[in-house]
């Protein structure tokens, strides 16, 4: 009914415009849907592969069967978990991410507050310096940091993966711009009530700035959770190695079993996927906050 009447005579419903509009809308949905399928395929493939007997992953690979586990089994998950020491890798990733994100929120927001609201000599110079530091990509620092970690004896530790990443000039700047835009009245009221700066910060600023904290937390989490180059250099053992490095080792570990590898990938993705689906809004705002930079 819809296709024909909509695109045919424009008599049926209203005078002009309407039917063409419906037609357009249908096409719009079609295009959006098609793209959605393409974007989802690899993820569906990953979960399907994880649920298949190992041999089937490649055997089914070239056809529609690649996307459906015809003989579903959880064996791959068990085998991948045991062969890769997944529990330990997950713990490492959680420790590194948790500490980096958590400490980063405290340290960066405090500095952002000092830049936005406290008055001290040299503040403007320091602010300009922080903005200038944003441009330095981590990769430019990796080699000297590797030397530093070696000399400090920090190689193959958690702190080598956490401490250098706590302070982040971009996050400082995000907090700074957010705090700058907050109304001053509340702070002044708090001050009149006798609250010191720390208390004002804790009980007025932080609760008001939840969106900023959420954005930074999510950006910082995405950056840390996926990090590969640095832990490849700075970690050696399974005791501290995070998931992405674990993945790079596991995907070449004989005997090569693609079902296991897909199960590893799936187990690594599920936590972030769940967090994303719960905090979607904050994710999107966090990413959009990137553009604030300029």
């Amino acid at each position: 009914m819809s296709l024909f009447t909509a695109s045919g005579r424009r008599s049926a419903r209203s005078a002009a415009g309407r039917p063409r509009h419906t037609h357009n809308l249908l096409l719009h949905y079609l295009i959006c849907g098609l793209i959605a399928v393409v974007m989802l395929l690899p993820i569906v493939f990953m979960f399907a592969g994880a649920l298949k007997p190992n041999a089937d992953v490649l055997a089914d690979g070239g056809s529609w069967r690649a996307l459906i586990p015809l003989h579903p089994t959880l064996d791959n998950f068990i085998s991948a978990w045991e062969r890769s020491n997944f529990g330990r890798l997950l713990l490492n990733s959680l420790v590194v991410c948790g500490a980096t994100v958590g400490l980063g929120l405290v340290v960066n927001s405090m500095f952002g507050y000092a830049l936005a609201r406290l008055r001290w000599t040299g503040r403007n110079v320091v602010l300009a310096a922080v903005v200038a530091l944003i441009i330095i990509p981590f990769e430019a620092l990796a080699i000297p940091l590797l030397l530093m970690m070696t000399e400090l004896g920090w190689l193959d530790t958690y702190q080598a993966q956490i401490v250098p990443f706590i302070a982040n000039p971009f996050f400082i700047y995000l907090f700074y711009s957010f705090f700058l835009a907050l109304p001053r009245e509340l702070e002044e009221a708090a001050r009149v009530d006798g609250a010191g700066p720390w208390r004002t910060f804790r009980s007025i600023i932080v609760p008001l700035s939840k969106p900023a904290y959420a954005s930074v937390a999510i950006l910082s989490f995405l950056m840390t959770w996926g990090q590969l180059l640095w832990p490849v250099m700075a970690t050696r053992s399974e005791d501290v190695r995070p998931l992405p490095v674990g993945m790079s080792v596991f995907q070449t570990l004989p005997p090569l079993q693609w079902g296991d590898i897909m199960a590893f990938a799936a187990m690594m993705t599920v936590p972030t996927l769940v967090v994303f689906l719960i905090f979607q809004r904050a994710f999107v705002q966090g990413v959009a906050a990137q553009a604030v930079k300029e």
Partner: protein
Amino acid sequence: MSHTTLDKPAPAPPSAPVARRRAVSGASSRGRVVAILFSAPALALLAVFLIFPFVSAIVLSFTNQRLASPLPVEFTGLENYQRIFTDGQFWRSFGNNTLFAAIVVPVQTAAALALAVLVNRQLRMRLFFRTVYFLPTVTVMAVASVVWKVLLLPDSGLVNGVLGTLSFGNLQPGWLSSTSWAMPAIVLTSVWQGVGFQMVIFLAGLQAIPASLYEAARVDGANAWQQFRHVTLPGLRNTLVFVINVTAIFAFRLFDQVYLMPQFPGGPTDATRTMMLQLLQTGYTRRMIGQASAIAVVFFLFVLAVTLVQRRLGREERTVR
């Protein structure tokens, strides 16, 4: 702008209702202490783990420093730079990064913009579409790389399965095992994983364009394309410049995919060797810190150049604070 200082000493109990009226002049010394307490952790960390290594990279690039080596460190002038600039592998990497940037920057930017425009329209399912398009970003690059590695297997991968059906078996690229198709394989993976991220940035930009501009254009009889061309694009100017800049820098940081996807790092005949892989192998595997630092400095200068170009392009319409 009026500055009001928070001039209470940090550790003081909040109950002390002392001379808060004298604030303005008495602020300085206490205010300084508070400011130091708030700033010190971040400043110290930035100094030790950002500024110091950054300066070190420059200094080390003029020395023969090696990792964990008893050999004495000597100043070697421009030797490291001479060595990397006469190294075929370095140029090969640089070329690969450039090729990658030349494809990914236009493709990913255009795709992200198209997606943003598609899902910015009033659709019942637009939230669903946005979520789905953003989903690949949430799967970390390491996961994306490994999944696409299997999808792109020449004989048993889904991509060639589909291509084979569509082209009646004529088009069967070797992807990661082929010199000419290895880089496109990396591109495909990167765009799939990254496009949602840029889409969200564009969406934020689109929503900042006032609806009245579109209404005015419609009144003037502008069709959809004309509206896009004369309202959307100019309105997105700064967002576009930003996204292009970020994507270009990202292209020169390319590492995860080329480390994880090819059979061995570097790919067939070094087709996917990149500067970051070169950095890792020089500084970490071969322990030549000095020479790797020179690569880092060259890389940084490139990032700096791209950003300065962006600042120039973006400046014109930036709002003044």
